[in-house]
């Protein structure tokens, strides 16, 4: 589980990317991104999600997203992310999504 805080933009996206990469390198395949404290996300930030989703799903894993603030959720929706990712309200729901199995997209 990774928690995002503040702005995820072109400045901070590379750092987020490295973090995810190191999680994957450590063998983790099921990632939950908690966006509870995320106040802004740019296309570059969303690009990080896209950069790993295929790789993770091919390995049988997934990324689930939870606790997204309405303003951020709007960006997810505009760019069509809710049809590609499981975006749920709370962390327990995200965990439950993994237990259900299955992948979106």
């Amino acid at each position: 589980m990774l928690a995002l805080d503040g702005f995820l933009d072109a400045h901070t996206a590379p750092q987020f990317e490295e973090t995810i990469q190191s999680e994957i390198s450590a063998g983790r395949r099921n990632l939950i991104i908690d966006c509870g404290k995320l106040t802004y996300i740019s296309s570059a930030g969303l690009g990080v999600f896209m950069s790993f989703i295929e790789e993770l799903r091919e390995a049988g894993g997934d990324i689930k997203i939870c606790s997204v603030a309405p303003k951020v959720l709007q960006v997810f929706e505009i760019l069509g992310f809710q049809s590609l990712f499981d975006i749920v309200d709370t962390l327990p729901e995200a965990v439950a999504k993994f237990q259900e199995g299955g992948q979106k997209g």
Partner: protein
Amino acid sequence: MATGFDASRLEALLESAKLLQSSLELDLILKHLMRTAMGRLVARRGLLAVRKQGALRLNLVRGAASLKAGEVFDEAQARAAGVEYLFCIGNESEPVGLLGIGGLVGTMQAEEAEFLQALLGVAASVISNAQAHDEARLANTMLDQRLQELRALLDLGRGLAATLDPEEVAQLVGLTLAGRWAVGKYAVAAFKEGQEPVLRQKGMDLSHVAGLQEVLLALPEAQLVQNQDLAESLKIPMGSLLIPIRTQESQIGLIACGPRMRGMSYREADLEFGAGLASQAAVAFENAWHFRDTLARQQLEKELNLAASIQRDLFPKSLPVLAQCDIAAKNRQARQVGGDYYDVLPFVATGPTDPHMLVVADISGKGISAALLMSIIQATLRTLLRRESSLLEIAGVANELLHATTPVNKYATAFLVVMDPATGACKFVNAAHNPSLLLRASGEVEMLDGPGLAIGLFPRRTYQEKSFEMHPGDILVLYSDGVNEAQDAKDDEFGTDRLTEVVKANAGEPAEVIVERIFEAIDAFAGAAPQFDDITLMVVKRTP
């Protein structure tokens, strides 16, 4: 309006109208309308068409398999499918829609027709409202999309401004596009002569594109790959979006984004967005590369300065004063540090009548490596002078030592002279260096030369020791190829004849003046042409 309606009909009409008006969703409205109409009339077939982009298109079809939702309404087709009654929704000259009914159990009652007309009157305004709402929503979505594009460009612009690393530029461009279009497969490649190629890719491979300049140059601004040949030559999937990265002069890279997920396609506005982003990327790549070049240049300059200072320290601060000898030497470095070296070293004892070795050498390579090799040669010669008694032995051992301790591309040409100031007897070995000039007091000129390879090149002994004697008034000139190969603007060389002339003309002057006159003559000859190589001169004059 509904004067002929009984209470139950009026009630049903009111209820339907209320239901219709409670929704702004066109689909719900049409379904409700269809249910009501078919239910009231006990009809088995029904169709609903609404005006969309100027044409009436079928939206709902019931019990008529030959008619398909989405198609343009055609009256003959509808009639053939068993739709018997057609009602306009709204104004008859330009209806917002059309209701078709067929397969009634009996015939249509006048009251039912009237009821339907009344209901359609209400439906007309409700449908118009819902359509307007849909349009507004669509416009809103488009606006949101454009806004998001602008934000993405702005965010990327800020990110690119903060980096001078080409890899990071590619990373930001890739992430922004992947996020903007929700694609998991993408690649960014950028390349420039003299720069490491930049490649950032996920799920596709563009490592081969740098070699495909011609294909790349033929690409328009941004395009969808719909051509099998192009897809194959670039090894990317059909339906990918290709965006060349160009500066005003050249093609510097390519962005490829895989097909969008969930069957979405790239729109015209996406191509524009991609092209805009690529031009930002082009500037950022150029800046990053320029910065790298500047850094590398500064690094090189630093190294050259360091080499130059090492070299300066290796030259003797002053030359020893030897009996009956007037010795002067000078080295002038070219802009790029070369590897000339001169020295006068005592054989064993340092007295004015003790034998000394005179050296002029030209060391392979430039910069730090040449300076280091020079210091190795100096140390080797100093050590050997104390140990070995013969010049031939010194040259041979120096060759073996240098060959054994340095890489093959490190060697030096050298002219070595051992002179006994007491008698004027000299011996020399030429290790592939320029012949030296010996101008006798009589005016006779001898070129001193001998066989042999550069020191450090091969482990074999190839040298020969030769002897000559210096008498008062004789002048010996050792020099590097920077002297005879100095060029003028027409690429003509200074040559040994000019050198001889200058020495002859100044034979009466002290050695130091002769050295200066030679330098002046070279400069006058070269004019504005730059000095390519180090110039080194040593003049020894035998005095009475």
